[in-house]
């Protein structure tokens, strides 16, 4: 047996040899576990990391993880990650970061991108390879900078330059360049608008918020809890082994420990200002306080097989149980843009024989405070769960005290591709801590919504 089959798998090979003589049976799935994570503090766009590149930030997060777990010179199975706003020169961003780190240069890497779900999708990819026995260890993560975003030339200038470069004679080249108009010289910065609808993510969520009748006060409460919980976690030293300082920043600089309902109530609405209809309240509810700010940052999570962790004398925080991604039909308004995790979770729970009651901790990415609220409201809605999710009735009610107990994106910020790694590492540490305290297994559900009507969800449990 030339493969890496375990002894038990090798034993069963003989029985199937008649039908597939050259292929041994797939080995039984084994566990993928979270060893630990590391990120740099997240920073509001245009501040501490204003001139930091994605490569610099991810290398910093990676190098901190390497240092924490003594991985210098180690050849890992792979490093997977990505950035949502990416320069074309960064075609091998993660591999370049590996080469710039103290990991063995023999560590493969690839880039992956799924909007805000990039980091979690990377972890799903790595853990699947570990579970299949294709790799023993891997790092998943992501990085994003709004401050150092790529600037593109206009379509007119780009076409003219391409035509000129394809031209064979000087005359053809000049003819191509003569098509450039003054207006073409204006640079284009990346937009957060959905390409198919022209609505920004905030406007999309404002529509979903209005449809579900989520109040301003409920959103501000979520925002307040996020800041208070994150501040408390920092004070308690929760992030001491999850964060490495970078460029003089030691904490997430979006965190407002002293915010209050009064302060949040003073902010002016920024999204959904013209949405009032016959069925929808006139007052817009989404403000800069209950929406995530544009942020720069990077995160990385170390995953491995139990054997690899044991052989390297490393801790095991959590088992990566299973994951489910989903997408929704939002283009013509059938479903809200950020509602895909609502669809993914019931499928994920059913496959694992679980219900919402079996989940001890919920990590619901706070793209907006109302994303959390519309997600929870949808699961409680009998009619919606029957017609849209194909369930027999409401999925269930989530105890709000189990949601984002150490804060989430509203307080920490949300550097798109870095959010999945932040949440996974924090959740893994949380279940590990909680299990140690209670002596019982602890399970966490992670839910990340993303542009394009996408969503990624996962279950982890104390190992």
């Amino acid at each position, binding site marked *: 047996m030339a493969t890496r089959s375990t002894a038990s798998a090798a034993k069963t090979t003989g029985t199937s040899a008649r039908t597939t003589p050259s292929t041994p049976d797939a080995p039984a799935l084994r566990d993928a576990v979270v060893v630990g994570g590391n990120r740099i503090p997240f920073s509001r766009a245009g501040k501490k990391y204003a001139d930091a590149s994605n490569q610099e930030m991810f290398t910093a997060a990676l190098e901190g993880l390497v240092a924490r777990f003594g991985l210098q010179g180690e050849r890992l199975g792979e490093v997977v990650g990505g950035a949502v706003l990416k320069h074309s020169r960064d075609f091998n961003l993660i591999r370049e970061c590996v080469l710039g780190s103290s990991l063995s240069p023999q560590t493969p890497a690839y880039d992956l991108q799924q909007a805000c779900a990039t980091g979690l999708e990377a972890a799903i990819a790595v853990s699947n390879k570990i579970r299949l026995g294709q790799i023993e260890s891997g790092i998943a993560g992501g990085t994003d900078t709004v401050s150092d975003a790529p600037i593109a030339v206009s379509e007119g200038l780009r076409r003219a330059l391409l035509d000129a470069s394809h031209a064979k004679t000087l005359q053809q080249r000049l003819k191509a360049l003569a098509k450039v108009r003054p*207006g073409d010289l204006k640079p284009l910065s990346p937009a957060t608008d959905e390409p198919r609808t022209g609505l920004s993510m905030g406007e999309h969520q404002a*529509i979903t918020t*209005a449809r579900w009748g989520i109040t301003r006060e409920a959103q501000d409460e979520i925002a307040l809890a996020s800041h208070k919980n994150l501040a408390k976690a920092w004070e308690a030293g929760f992030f001491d082994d999850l964060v490495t300082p970078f460029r003089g920043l030691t904490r997430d600089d979006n965190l407002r420990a002293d915010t209050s309902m009064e302060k949040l109530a003073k902010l002016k609405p920024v999204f959904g200002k013209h949405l009032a209809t016959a069925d*929808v309240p006139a007052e817009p509810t989404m403000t800069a306080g209950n929406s995530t700010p544009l942020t720069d940052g990077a995160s990385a999570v170390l995953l491995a097989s139990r054997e690899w962790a044991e052989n390297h004398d490393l801790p095991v925080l959590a088992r990566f149980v299973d994951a489910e991604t989903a997408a929704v039909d939002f283009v*013509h*308004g059938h479903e809200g843009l950020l509602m895909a995790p609502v669809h993914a979770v019931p499928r994920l729970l059913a496959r694992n024989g679980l219900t919402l009651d079996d989940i001890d901790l919920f990590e619901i990415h706070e793209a907006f405070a109302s994303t959390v609220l519309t997600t929870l409201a949808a699961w409680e809605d009998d009619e919606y769960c029957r017609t849209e999710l194909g369930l027999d009735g409401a999925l269930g009610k989530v105890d709000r005290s189990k949601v984002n107990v150490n804060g989430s994106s509203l307080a920490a910020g949300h550097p798109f591709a870095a959010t999945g790694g932040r949440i996974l590492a924090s959740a893994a540490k949380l279940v590990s801590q909680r299990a140690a305290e209670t002596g019982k297994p602890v399970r966490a559900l992670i839910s990340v919504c993303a542009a394009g009507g996408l969503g990624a969800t996962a279950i982890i449990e104390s190992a």
Partner: protein
Amino acid sequence: MTAVVTATDGGDLDVETLPALPGLGGLYARGAASSGRIAAGRALPAIPGIGGGPAASEGVIALPRVAYRVAGVETARMGEHLRDYQRLLHEPGSDSLPAGFLHVLAFPLATAVMVRGDFPLPLLGMVHLANDVSLTRPVVLGERLEVRAWAENLRPHRRGVQVDLVAEVRVEDPSAAEPVLAWRGVSTYLAKGFQVPDAPGAAQGSSGAVSGTGSGAEGDREPEGAWVPPLPTGRWVLPAGTGRAYGAISGDRNPIHMSTLSAKAFGFPRAIAHGMYTAARALAEVGPARGATYRWTVEFARPVLLPGTVDVAITPVDATEGALDGAKPPGFTYLGWNSGRRTRHFTGTVTPL
């Protein structure tokens, strides 16, 4: 040729075959000249010879009993034009010609009818009220087409007269004896201040227009804020050059679309978007659910001033409201409006056939 065209309002039209599809640039110059002549004829009806056309001088206006026809229209070399159209209107990069592209193709022939000396209404200043297009057979790049166009159904409108410009596109299918009808478009225009007697059985008002929205650029206007919009599914941010961009693709360089200055000459504060740009973009944004053949309608209300932002709702018709047999999906409705002023720009439907 043997072709005879029978107008929807009855009566055969003489078919006049042109060698090729006319260019729109020259047509607009002629249209401007004849518009001036028609205006002069109405202002000075007593002076013989000024009006020129029989319609104006006789007081009762009538449409020319003629249909234009162009055969052998090659689409094989329209690849670049199609690509530019697809990029501007957000159509997918396919070799099938969208219904809006076929409109662009047939529009010059319909315009040629409108600039004839005996066409009784002025090309410039007419208000585009509505369009009703059916694509009944997919048309693919490389097929040879026959295009026909004529005017029919002159009828009263409360602010003047309205007329239908009908265009048809047939595919010269080598396996068929006759070219096969693939596309038919009816464009309804309003000429303000003109009058025709009520024909027995003729429809009142614009064809199928919703009461209060059927009026075009300068027609009756509902008061601002009286109407409550639905939730949008999209938002179009249209730059100032939108009219010039669609003008370049469609050949329709009517001055009201080209610049603030030229639009002001016709009473608009700024350039306005082509109605067909907005309708064709809504058609594109319905996406693959429209199917390979479909009916596409639009009614125009207030014009879209450029630059401008249009909120749109492009939504599937609730299946329970459509045909109960479920044989065909019931299609989409679309609506465009100004969210700040709460006024409608256009409304329409896209229905798979």
